[in-house]
């Protein structure tokens, strides 16, 4: 039983990260009908800025939590700036163009790979734990850092869910994702809504980046693994669906955790891809998909 609790706790911790990642992907697809492979780089930039700034700020006399908060704000600001540049000079011109946006995002991935490597170097950066210590939950060992990450992920997911359902911006985003032409006919400024949707998605990726920096391997290629898992999660849940993204993320994390424990990490990865094929056979648009 204790093993089951430990594995469930692990699955929820990993799933929380995938939720943040997949929410951004699904939001961008829902509003703009594009596939954004650069999402992982926005995440990477935020994590890299934290990894670079935090030691310098700490050396300057700031306490670890204060330095982390400051570095995180800078990281999120840099990541959002990158997101804005990508939208204005790239994706704005390829909205609702799956093939065009696909080619553009692959090109941008190659470009940003080189730029990040040049700017940050290829070496792995370590970020010390900001909230050290661990707690035992039902016999499962969980670090406080991971608990903090989970709490923020849940908060972000609930906020997004409520915002989409009840705020003016959320309603506009939903209207655009259902039928952008009808939305424009009733006065919704599509271009502005698309930009805001892209920036909210970038914000989610940036928050995931700064939250994960203290618990993972920070390098310029860190985003790739999360991007793949995030995409699998939204494909399973259904592109464009917020509940689908959450469900898909928890599902992928559970397969990864339980598969790695009872089989082997490599088999677990294979199992994830196998399950995607099975899901698409029965639900070609994903479990909750409309796209």
């Amino acid at each position, binding site marked *: 039983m204790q093993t089951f609790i430990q594995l469930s706790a692990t699955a929820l911790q990993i799933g929380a*990260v995938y939720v943040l990642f997949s929410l951004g992907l699904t939001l961008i697809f829902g509003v703009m009908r594009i596939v954004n492979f650069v999402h992982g780089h926005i995440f990477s930039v935020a994590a890299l800025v934290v990894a670079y700034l935090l030691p310098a700020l700490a050396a300057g006399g700031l306490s670890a939590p204060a330095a982390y908060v400051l570095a995180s704000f800078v990281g999120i600001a840099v990541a959002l700036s990158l997101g804005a540049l990508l939208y204005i000079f790239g994706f704005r011109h390829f909205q609702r163009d799956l093939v065009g946006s696909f080619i553009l995002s692959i090109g941008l991935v190659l470009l940003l790979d080189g730029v990040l490597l040049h700017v940050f170097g*290829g070496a792995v950066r370590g970020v010390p734990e900001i909230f050290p210590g*661990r707690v035992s939950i039902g016999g499962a060992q969980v670090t406080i850092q991971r608990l903090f990450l989970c709490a923020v992920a849940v908060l972000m997911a609930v906020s997004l869910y409520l915002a989409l359902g009840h705020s003016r911006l959320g309603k506009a985003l939903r209207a655009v994702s259902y039928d952008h032409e009808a939305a424009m006919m009733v006065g919704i400024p599509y271009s502005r809504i698309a930009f805001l949707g892209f920036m909210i998605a970038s914000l989610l990726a940036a928050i995931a980046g700064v939250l994960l920096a203290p618990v993972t391997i920070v*390098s310029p290629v860190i985003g790739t693994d999360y991007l793949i898992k995030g995409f699998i999660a939204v494909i399973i849940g259904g592109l464009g669906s917020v509940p689908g993204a959450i469900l898909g993320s928890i599902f992928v994390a559970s397969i990864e955790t339980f598969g790695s424990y009872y089989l*082997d990490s490599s088999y677990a990865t294979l199992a994830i891809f196998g399950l995607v094929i099975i899901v698409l056979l029965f639900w070609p648009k994903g479990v909750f998909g409309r796209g």
Partner: protein
Amino acid sequence: MIIKKQLKSGAAVLALAGLIAGAAQAEEVIRLGLSVPLSGAAAVWGKGAEFLCNTAAREIREGGGVSVGGETYNFECLSYDNKYNAAEGTKVAQALLNREGVKFIGGSLGTAPVQALQALAERQDVLVFTVAWGASIKGVKHPMTFTQMNTPGEILPLLIAYIAKEHPEAKSVAMLNPNDATGKETETLAGDIWAKNGVDVAASDFYERGTTEFQPIAARLASLKPAIIDLGATPPADAGAIFKELDVLGWKGVKVVEVGTGADGLKATGGDAAEGVYMGAGVTFEGNAATDHQKAINEQAKAQIGESLNAVQIGFYDSVYALKAAMEKAGSVDPKIVAEVLPQVTFKSFYGEEVGFYGKELYGRDQQMRLPIIVTKVIGGTLAEVARLKP
């Protein structure tokens, strides 16, 4: 009058051009091709390799160059990005050998891209140095290939015997390796050697390179309750992350990264959990064991690539000096003649010792640099050399 002036100017220009051409002819340049990852996760290895090849070439130039048959030659390093995969490795091989006309490969990294390079190089009698670990690229079928760093075949027997002796109470091991050619070869060899040293292999798993969440892997390893966890060919950064998760789960035991190359990545992700980790391919530049030359070059490397040098990169320095020694002994820059002479020469390695080549018993020909097996351990947060074993 004007025509006369123009003729004079023209003659002066021609004379100057002749002088420049003559000076250019005086310096013979041998280009050393490098097939290394310069982008992606392994880019830091490639950049360090390029840095050390250039460092050795510069030192040799400053020391008077390579003297062959009354001519003086200098080396120039030409690196291409193989992205650590076979497809790019093939493109790099074609670019280096067919387009650039390179006759010597100063170093190559990654078993898959090296196999692509080797296939083309052997047809063109190009001499290849490599740090690739795969045993399949060594042997009598590959007379133009030489290995410039210790591989699992050299490291594991001595390292595992040392650890087994240091920890006689540890009688079970759980192994984890990357799911690729390097990981598979390391795992097969290590499993046999642990067993020969009286240690029971409780489990041996593989994981995909690029994995970022190691909690499930750590949970499985910890559940086996092994006395030793051997992460084999796992890169240091991944190994650090795994040991950190194992620490959260409360596992205590002997930690080994057999072919771990450095402590920077290990400490960056593992933090305090990196304490006590044994490595077989690490190099330390702390303390009295390191020479001033090593320390100075390492400081330059840290400024340039952001990390301390490791054994993979050092191979790219040693190969340049090995080529110099072989060319001077052979009195030729013909790659085939140089390859025949190479097993007979010795040269001063970056490690500070005079080394040659061996490996006839294991691989059928002397193609492996006889480098020391340096056993390192993370003690008090820094990498310390705990033993230097002679192969």
